[in-house]
């Protein structure tokens, strides 16, 4: 229509909205010139507001008539039948999409949701799903939406078949993969097919071969086939193995920045070794980490294999691209409503106003996720506008409830049945300090412990912990020589890191002990001790210890070693002056075919010093039982008291355990079960001088330990005492479980 100046503006078709609203979004006003350009612009502006389904500009004389049809609002929105996929995170994503009661309805929104739901079902292995959405008109320009999902059967992997593998058998290769064919395990989820997991698995297969010298290994093709009833999936992987390659040499190219000496130190691929892609990529990562230590955050180091086909050798050329140097301006945290900023910032390995190191930032993110009160941490690097080498880093934190209550039940030969309860709060007032209270009750003793730990007493990670405990033990019932001891104590300890595997522990302790003796059952030695020292005494102790721990796992380790030297000294001026020194060693020697040799050894020596060399009976060492020498009843080795012949313990204990770990077929990575043949040797002596090799009791047998989801660590052992002397109490079969360790 021909242009005219607007005298008045009128709106038609408004239901829920007001004329004021239209005028706000309409870029035209009375007196403006209306022509094809401005009218097109006006229509686009009204559509952009998202309020209207249809907009028309009409002319009535000099009045501009804006005829609109409002978008219907959603009166009700419902998804039915989606119990496998859904829950609140689906509703949340739908809300963000704009599909919630009260929002305005758009048809393409519904298609988007349907596609998203179908994609999620396929990703979880539900190929048989049927999704149907219904839109019903309702009065007052409203619509109600209903999406009906019929999930059908889940599709499981029936068989994964690898063709063309000669060097490694199917079983070894299949174990590397995350996807597994359906096996006997209940609640198995690894047989659900997902494309991402398959891609990940193919990479694992590729690196399994390339880490063992098969540089030219290649996956020729992969077929994923579905049965017509859509209940099973067959995966076929066709591979070509190629030959084994050895490393000939290594060289560095590109802009290396660092001098040769540093680069040599950072790479571990030596000439003559079998080529391993893992070694090559790890060396490249180390160079990248070194470069990013001086600000080359975006450094890229690619190990390029230069292959000499004739004699099957490869020389690795580390091509370095340092990229631009960058610095970090600010690090900020979002989402920590329950945690202090400092509690997170002290985990950072990247500082502000410092060179930007991507590996340091990633390490910081991983450290955050390891905090007990953090569930998830994501990091985002944003360049600072106006500068070309400054970045800001933002960590998005998702917190986890810090408190936890644990109950455990246990049983061990020495302590009988054991019930433990523990309450921990890992983020007291957001400071990251941990407070815990635990109660333990078993047949021979009851104890209550209260603990408070600050992992970052100093910014560099020296930890401080304070604990109070009260322990009542009635050893009159169990084996020992008939006395009760009630100990009330407190400890202040500091943990000081000395190097990446060595840490020092130092601190002070105070103990108030009360002994109870019973004329009928207490042994003479204890009675003499009480005569000399009375029944109540308090000791001030200096506790220290240094430990080297490079084991790769706390339980069922397969590599590394542990050496722990501890000394508890009752200081002069306390009622009793004695010291308790012990050394414990544990080394793991991996053997081929996943066998492991575990060697344990321990020496403990307690003695008085200065004028009285009396050692309180409850500090004596005992031997026998699962922790020391299996096959003998708990604590039954060593000197006996007079006149009842109960075990009295001794000042010196020496034990050694050698175990050959046998790999189990059912659970190959040995994370929660361990079967081993063992040989134990050890004993307790009243005085160090009494040590005699012949007296050391020996035993050999089979042990099985298993991490049960409910009972904690379960230890079973069946042992044959080899040189039991008469009077020894032997137990061939011994069991302990629960947190009694």
């Amino acid at each position, binding site marked *: 229509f021909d242009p005219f100046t607007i005298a008045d503006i009128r709106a038609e078709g408004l239901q829920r909205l007001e004329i004021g609203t239209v005028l706000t979004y309409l870029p035209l006003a009375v007196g403006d010139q209306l022509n094809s350009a401005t009218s097109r612009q006006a229509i686009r502006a009204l559509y952009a507001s998202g309020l209207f389904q249809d907009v028309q500009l009409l002319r009535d004389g000099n009045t501009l008539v804006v005829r609109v049809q409002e978008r219907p609002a959603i009166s009700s929105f419902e998804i039915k039948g989606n119990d496998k996929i859904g829950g609140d995170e689906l509703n949340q994503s739908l809300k963000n999409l704009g599909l919630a009661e009260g929002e305005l309805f758009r048809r393409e929104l519904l298609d988007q949701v349907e596609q998203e739901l179908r994609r999620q079902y396929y990703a979880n292995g539900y190929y048989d799903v049927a999704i149907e959405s219904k839109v019903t008109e309702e009065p007052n320009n409203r619509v109600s939406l209903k999406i*009906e999902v019929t999930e059908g059967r889940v599709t499981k992997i029936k068989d994964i078949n690898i063709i063309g593998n000669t060097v490694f058998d199917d079983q070894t290769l299949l174990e590397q993969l995350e996807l597994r064919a359906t096996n006997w395990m209940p609640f198995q989820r690894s047989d659900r097919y997902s494309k991402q997991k398959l891609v990940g698995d193919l990479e694992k297969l590729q690196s399994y071969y390339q880490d063992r010298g098969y540089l030219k290994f290649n996956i020729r093709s992969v*077929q994923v086939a579905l049965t017509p009833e859509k209940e099973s999936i067959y995966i076929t992987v066709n591979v070509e193995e190629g030959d084994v390659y050895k490393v000939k040499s290594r060289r560095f190219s590109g802009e290396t920045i660092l001098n040769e000496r540093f680069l040599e130190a950072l790479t571990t691929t030596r000439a003559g070794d079998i080529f391993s892609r893992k070694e090559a990529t790890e060396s490249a990562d180390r160079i990248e980490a070194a470069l990013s230590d001086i600000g080359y955050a975006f450094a890229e180091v690619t190990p390029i294999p230069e292959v000499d086909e004739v004699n099957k050798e490869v020389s690795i050329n580390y091509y370095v691209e340092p990229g631009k140097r960058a610095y970090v301006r600010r690090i900020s945290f979002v989402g920590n409503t329950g945690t202090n900023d400092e509690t997170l910032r002290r985990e950072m390995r990247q500082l502000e106003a410092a060179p930007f190191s991507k590996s340091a930032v990633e390490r910081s993110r991983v450290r955050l996720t390891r905090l007990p009160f953090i569930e998830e941490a994501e990091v985002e690097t944003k360049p600072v506008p106006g500068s070309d080498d400054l970045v800001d880093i933002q960590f998005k934190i998702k917190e986890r409830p810090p408190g936890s209550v644990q109950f455990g039940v246990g049983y061990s030969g020495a302590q009988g049945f054991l019930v433990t309860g523990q309450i921990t709060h890992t983020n007291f007032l957001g400071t990251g300090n941990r407070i815990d209270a635990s109660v333990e009750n078993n047949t021979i003793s009851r104890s209550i412990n209260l603990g408070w730990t600050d992992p970052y007493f100093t910014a560099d990670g020296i930890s401080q912990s304070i604990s109070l405990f009260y322990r009542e033990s009635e050893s009159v019932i169990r084996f020992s020589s008939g006395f009760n001891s009630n100990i009330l104590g407190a400890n202040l300890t500091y943990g000081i890191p000395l190097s990446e595997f060595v840490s020092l522990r130092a601190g002070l302790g105070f103990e108030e002990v009360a002994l109870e003796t019973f004329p009928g059952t207490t042994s003479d030695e204890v009675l003499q001790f009480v005569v000399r020292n009375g029944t109540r005494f308090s000791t001030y102790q200096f506790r220290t210890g240094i430990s080297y721990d490079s084991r790769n796992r706390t339980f069922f380790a397969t590599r590394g070693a542990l050496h722990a030297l501890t000394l508890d000294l009752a200081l002069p001026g306390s009622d009793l002056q004695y010291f308790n020194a012990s050394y414990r060693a544990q080394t793991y020697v991996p053997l081929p075919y996943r066998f492991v040799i575990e060697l344990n050894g321990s020496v403990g020596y307690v003695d008085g010093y200065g004028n009285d060399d009396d050692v309180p009976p409850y500090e004596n060492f005992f031997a026998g039982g699962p922790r020391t020498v299996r096959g003998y009843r708990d604590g039954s080795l060593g000197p006996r008291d007079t006149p009842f012949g109960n075990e009295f313990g001794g000042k010196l204990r020496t034990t050694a355990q050698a175990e050959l770990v046998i790999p189990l077929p059912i659970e190959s990575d040995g994370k929660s079960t361990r079967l081993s043949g063992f040989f134990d040797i050890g004993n307790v002596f009243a005085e160090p001088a009494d040590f005699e090799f012949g007296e050391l009791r020996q035993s050999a047998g089979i042990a099985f330990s298993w991490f049960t989801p409910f009972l904690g660590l379960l230890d079973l052992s069946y042992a044959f005492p080899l040189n039991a002397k008469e009077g020894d109490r032997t137990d061939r079969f011994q069991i302990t479980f629960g947190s009694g360790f």
Partner: protein
Amino acid sequence: CSKDGKVREPAELQDIVNPQLRLSTVWTARAGEGSGKYRASLDVTVAEDAVYAAEVGGRVYAFDPNTGARLWVTDTDARVISGPSVSGNAVLVGTMEGEVIALKRADGAPYWRSTISSEALATPVGDGNLVIARAGDGRVHALSAVSGSALWMFERTVPSLTLRGLGKPVIDGNRVFVGMDNGRVAALRMADGQPIWEQAVAAPSGRNELERLTDIDGALLLDGGELYVASYGGEVACLDGDTGQVLWRRAVKSYTGPTRIGDIIVVSDESGVVWGLDATTGAAAWKNEDLKYRRLSPPAAFAERIVVGDYEGYLHWLDPKDGRLVARARAGRDPIQAVPVADGALLYVLDTAGRLAAIRAD
């Protein structure tokens, strides 16, 4: 018409008022454990002197066609996934380890073994001097029938998601027809494997991998110069054998092969509906929905009627004129996925548990 509950409930069977055939089982035999938990293309093959069957455990059997007595059994000690088929004096089977194994027809003695590029999912077929074997990765291998040595190889890419199983190639004189997973049929020259023609039966359509499935898994039917093809992509088509030109198409989605009786082409579709199509025009003569969702085996012709097996081991006979159910028999409890084979007066049926039965109708 209950809205929720499981998708696709198998239809209940109604009794047959007056069966037109009196069926009796002449003999039954056990061919090992059958296809076990796998979905395999193990079917029974009938020759003049013997009936052959194989099992996933690796054993291949030969039985006397009339008495069912076992002539010989050989353990190939491999996971047999397809076959057996007869070629000249050899019996051929395909394995999951990508091997084609030939045994002497007379006594089952090992003849030769040859490795192809992937799982031999389709039954290898041979014309006495050349054996055509199809591998799961989309390659068609031609092996010498005498020594198993590779002669030529034809290859097409395989879609990222396919239906398990491959169609049995059909040899016709100096050419072989192959129905592929990408919904196309190719005619290859037996001499050198060069493609004579290639024709798309169904084009992949739909937004996700599942909707784009167009496999031709059922066996092709060559009859009088025309080739009848059923594809999962939603089309049954009739192609001219020489040029591959499409004579007619019909929108029926099926993963099992068609069969012919009189001038009716019979195909059972993916949801268990049995269709009768006019052979020359493709128009739907009749459609029987009584066996919906009963996971039907490929149909076959026997005693002038159509026979098809289902997932509970029943055999159903339909009248070719109007598709009505006219007779029913039951050999065992286990699903019948292999196509029943008629030879003279007997119908040989193999179920997935390895039970082989010979049935007579009069």
